[in-house]
């Protein structure tokens, strides 16, 4: 690297000097031997060399190319001049550091959540294989689900694949010697690690030998993070016994440090072979069932196969497999129409270099919105610095004109400005990168711990550094470019001749910059107003029940080895214990937890006057006390009672309660009481559950949704676990204490899945909304400050320039008011232009944020008006100071000025 030469140029110079002196001395003595006098010899020798200075210069050009040498010189000059104007430097560097730091922090999240390819061998060859159409199957899990056997079938399609893997995320009760803890795990096929090309840090990884006969290979692989944090990197970890849902299993190895599973939102602590899924998911017996969809399937394409080719190429085989499936024993009896849909199914292959991630689905859009916002902020910071440069440039105008007159080329002067910009931006970038981890930690703190926080990290890696460097360089060029352009063009004579009173050409450009700043700022402020309105709207709306003094927790006794009957008895014991406690008021149980985004949902068949099939209904099973504990009122009919919870005649409920939205939509005004319903939509569905009550609407999955819901009673002896909702008396802390005691008395080894107040859960469910409101609000504030500084700077500059004119006007009888107006008019034009631009842009950008909003439109007039008003007042305030100063000018002083 030639650039390195710059750092030891002292050495190089000394060496060259010695070398040249040696040459000269030898030549001189040789020439003197041939009879010349010393003086003549010296002259002759110098002549032959062509001038020592010239040689030196040429050699220096070899060390560092000419351009680079000059640029280094420029940088040094810039650095010197920055030290002379510290306030300018600090303002500019801090503006850029803010912009670059914020952009880097957000980009790091974008990179981790959206862009980062898995740390596996050739991630670009990975594809997600998904079933398009009706699978005629039951399932559980998140998205893109298929059965285990189809993964094994796909594995044999080796014309297209170098391997196929399947995996499912789950939570197990893991005990590594002490109390069992709920731990994230990944159930994987034997091909998982070899197809991904992940290596081990210790022992060995799960291979196809571990994924044979169901239940025969009780082995697990631990994640590196789990091994280091929970087991203190114990060297004897391989061979240790652990308990997974009370089943003993052997640790056979630890995966490579950088590998954290294929889902950025769910980092597993351990991997379990699919053959052990019956132990990993209590009561699960359908690993080999072709009609149970629960795993994601990913394949590694052969080197010369594209996803599209493979998709087309697989179709004949897939078609034949579907045909064969319908003839298999155990294929469900389905309607002709569904059968047609089943047979028309296709496989869809999509590139999946980043793996599979529901977190990405959820966070991608908000993150892009934030990234766009930081982009605007960074642009603003660059504009600010460009404006500062111009201001400083006009102060330096005479210096520059002198340099031009002395023969500096315009490109040379322009390059000086670029050097200024780049030096500032790199300094700002450095500061930004240093502060970015702090910003990232703050950001990640917004995300609830259980969701994704453990998956995201705030470290700066080389990719991020590269990004920050690119951003800094770009902003340096951008902020240096405008003034460079300006001064590369200006007429030399006029600026040399100029005195304080004349109008400078830079003003138009500076006004344009301030106008752009105002536009950018207004866009951010409007965005902030929209997100704040969304958040406050959702908070004001609430979940439809009183959240204060409501706490909840979940247990999953089936994972601790309980049978369903034992689990029911345990839950009854806990329920009785809580009710007996003095710090609680009421308590109810629900099968599915509220406000976490998840639900149990299915279409239903209603038999009222005629038979009809509904869309997806959100379902839940609840105990009789559930609605009263949450304070949700019955609108019609009755609630559940003890009779309804008895499991007479099988595990199916006999009664149900629907919510108002359900009754409104599907029973249109008629009384739903007495109507018969059931889960499922096929012709074999038998509506035999009677609607006995209608409950007031409340939010089930999240605060945004308004859904049709139906509730069944929890039946004795059928539940595997549940979520307890407890109304507390007094402080929640005291209640937490006594609830914990109740559970410890019931089973000291039983882990609680979560334990928090309902208010906290409401806040958690609004994570994205809070992040957007807080960050865009913060960016808006920063932007406002930046553009106020910009506007103030330009206005003071203009006013100073016009002091003489204003003085004359005042002397000729103009009033102070008219002097103020004269300056303000300028500012108003800029503000109006900026506002107009911003409003147009905001309308166009609205689509980007629309899906993140609730209760407001992207063009919400109130938000726009409020933002515009705020901006106008603030900017006018900034303009008023120089305007007022102008009006107090003493005409005599002004005329004497210059």
């Amino acid at each position, binding site marked *: 690297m030639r650039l390195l030469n710059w750092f030891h140029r002292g050495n190089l110079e000394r060496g060259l000097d010695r070398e040249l002196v*040696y*040459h000269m001395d030898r030549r001189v003595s040789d020439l003197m031997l041939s009879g010349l006098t010393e003086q003549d010899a010296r002259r002759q020798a110098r002549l032959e060399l*062509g001038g020592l200075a010239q040689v030196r210069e040429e050699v220096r050009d070899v*060390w560092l190319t000419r351009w680079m040498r000059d640029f280094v010189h420029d940088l040094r000059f810039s650095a010197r001049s920055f030290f002379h104007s510290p306030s300018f430097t600090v303002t500019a560097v801090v503006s850029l550091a803010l912009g670059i730091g914020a952009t880097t922090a957000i980009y790091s999240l974008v990179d981790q959540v959206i862009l980062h390819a898995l740390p596996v061998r050739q991630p670009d060859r990975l594809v997600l294989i998904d079933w398009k159409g009706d699978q005629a199957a039951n399932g559980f899990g998140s998205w893109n689900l298929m059965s285990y056997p189809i993964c094994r079938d796909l594995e044999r399609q080796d014309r297209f694949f170098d391997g196929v893997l399947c995996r499912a995320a789950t939570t197990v009760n893991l005990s590594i010697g002490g109390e069992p803890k709920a731990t994230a795990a990944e159930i994987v096929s034997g091909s998982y690690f070899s197809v991904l090309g992940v290596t081990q840090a210790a022992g060995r990884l799960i291979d196809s030998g571990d994924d044979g006969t169901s239940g025969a290979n009780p082995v697990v692989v631990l994640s590196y993070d789990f091994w280091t944090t929970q087991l203190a990197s114990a060297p004897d970890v391989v061979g240790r016994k652990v308990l997974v849902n009370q089943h003993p299993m052997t640790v056979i190895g630890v995966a490579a440090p950088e590998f954290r599973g294929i889902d950025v939102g769910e980092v597993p602590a351990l991997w379990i072979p699919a053959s052990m899924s019956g132990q990993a998911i209590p009561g699960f017996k359908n690993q080999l069932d072709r009609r149970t969809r629960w795993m994601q399937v990913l394949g590694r394409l052969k080197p010369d196969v594209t996803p599209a080719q493979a998709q087309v190429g697989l179709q004949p085989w897939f078609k034949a497999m579907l045909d064969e499936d319908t003839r298999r024993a155990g294929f469900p009896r389905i309607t002709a129409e569904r059968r047609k849909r089943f047979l028309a199914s296709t496989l869809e292959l999509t590139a999946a270099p980043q793996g599979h991630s529901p977190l990405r689905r959820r966070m991608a859009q908000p993150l892009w919105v934030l990234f766009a916002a930081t982009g605007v902020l960074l642009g603003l910071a660059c504009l600010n610095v460009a404006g500062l440069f111009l201001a400083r440039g006009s102060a330096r105008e005479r210096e520059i004109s002198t340099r031009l007159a002395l023969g500096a080329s315009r490109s040379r002067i322009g390059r000086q400005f670029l050097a200024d910009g780049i030096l500032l931006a790199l300094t700002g970038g450095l500061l930004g990168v240093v502060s970015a981890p702090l910003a990232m930690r703050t950001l990640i703190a917004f995300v609830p711990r259980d969701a994704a926080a453990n998956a995201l990290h705030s470290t700066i890696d080389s990719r991020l550094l590269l990004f920050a460097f690119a951003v800094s360089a770009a902003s340096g060029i951008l902020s240096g470019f405008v003034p460079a352009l300006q001064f590369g063009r200006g007429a030399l004579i006029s600026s040399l001749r100029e005195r304080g009173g004349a109008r400078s050409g830079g003003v138009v450009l500076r006004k344009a910059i301030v106008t752009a700043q105002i536009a950018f700022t207004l866009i951010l402020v409007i965005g902030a107003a929209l997100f704040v309105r969304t958040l406050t709207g959702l908070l004001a709306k609430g979940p439809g029940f009183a959240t204060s003094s409501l706490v909840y927790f979940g247990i999953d006794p089936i994972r601790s080895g309980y049978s369903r009957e034992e689990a029911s008895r345990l839950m009854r014991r806990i329920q009785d214990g809580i009710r007996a406690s003095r710090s609680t008021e009421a308590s109810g149980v629900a099968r599915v937890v509220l406000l976490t985004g998840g639900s149990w949902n299915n279409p239903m068949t209603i038999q009222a006057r005629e038979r009809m099939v509904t869309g997806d209904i959100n379902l839940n099973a609840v105990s009789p006390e559930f609605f009263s504990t949450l304070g949700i009122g019955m609108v019609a009919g009755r609630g559940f009672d003890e009779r309804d919870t008895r499991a007479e005649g099988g595990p199916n409920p006999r009664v149900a309660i629907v919510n108002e939205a359900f009754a409104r939509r599907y029973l249109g005004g008629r009384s739903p009481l007495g109507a018969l319903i059931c889960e499922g939509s096929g012709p074999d569905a038998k509506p035999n559950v009677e609607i006995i009550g209608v409950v007031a609407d409340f939010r089930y999955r999240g605060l945004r949704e308004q859904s049709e819901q139906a509730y069944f009673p929890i039946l004795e002896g059928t539940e595997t676990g549940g979520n307890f909702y407890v109304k507390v008396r007094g402080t929640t802390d005291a209640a937490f204490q006594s609830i914990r005691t109740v559970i410890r008395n019931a089973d000291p080894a039983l882990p609680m899945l979560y334990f928090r107040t309902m208010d906290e859960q409401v806040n958690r469910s609004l994570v994205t909304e809070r992040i957007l409101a807080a960050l865009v609000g913060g960016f808006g504030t920063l932007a406002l400050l930046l553009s106020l500084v910009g506007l103030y700077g330009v206005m003071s500059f203009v006013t100073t320039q016009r002091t003489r004119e204003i003085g004359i006007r005042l002397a000729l009888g103009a009033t102070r008011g008219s002097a103020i107006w004269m300056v303000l008019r300028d500012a108003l034009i800029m503000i109006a232009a900026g506002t107009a631009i911003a409003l147009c842009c905001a309308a166009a950008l609205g689509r980007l944020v629309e899906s993140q909003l609730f209760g407001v439109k992207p063009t919400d007039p109130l938000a726009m008006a409020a933002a515009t008003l705020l901006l106008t007042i603030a900017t006018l305030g900034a303009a008023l100071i120089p305007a007022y100063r102008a009006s107090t000018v003493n005409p005599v002083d002004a005329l004497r000025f210059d």
Partner: protein
Amino acid sequence: MPPARFPIPQGTLDMLILQILSLEPAHGYGIARRLEQISQAVVQVNQGSLYPALHRLEQKKWLQAEWKQSETGREAKFYSLTSSGRRQLAVERSSWARLAGAVQLIFAEGNE
């Protein structure tokens, strides 16, 4: 004044330096003298262009330099060929031979 001589053809100085150093390591002045002797005062080498060339070749890692005692007892910077410099010399030599051969051919054809 020195007699009229041909200026050294562009790009051949590097090759000549490599060739001289392939015989034995030498310092800048030594190379200048060798150049003068070998070219028998036919080719004019501007001594000023020697040092930039040496530094350029050193930068390209075709030469390495070391300070050693010279024949007069003073320390001088001695340049010697590196193995990649040796390879480069072979390349330049063969391409020069090809060029010279081609020029020769063109002249020969013109004379017939």
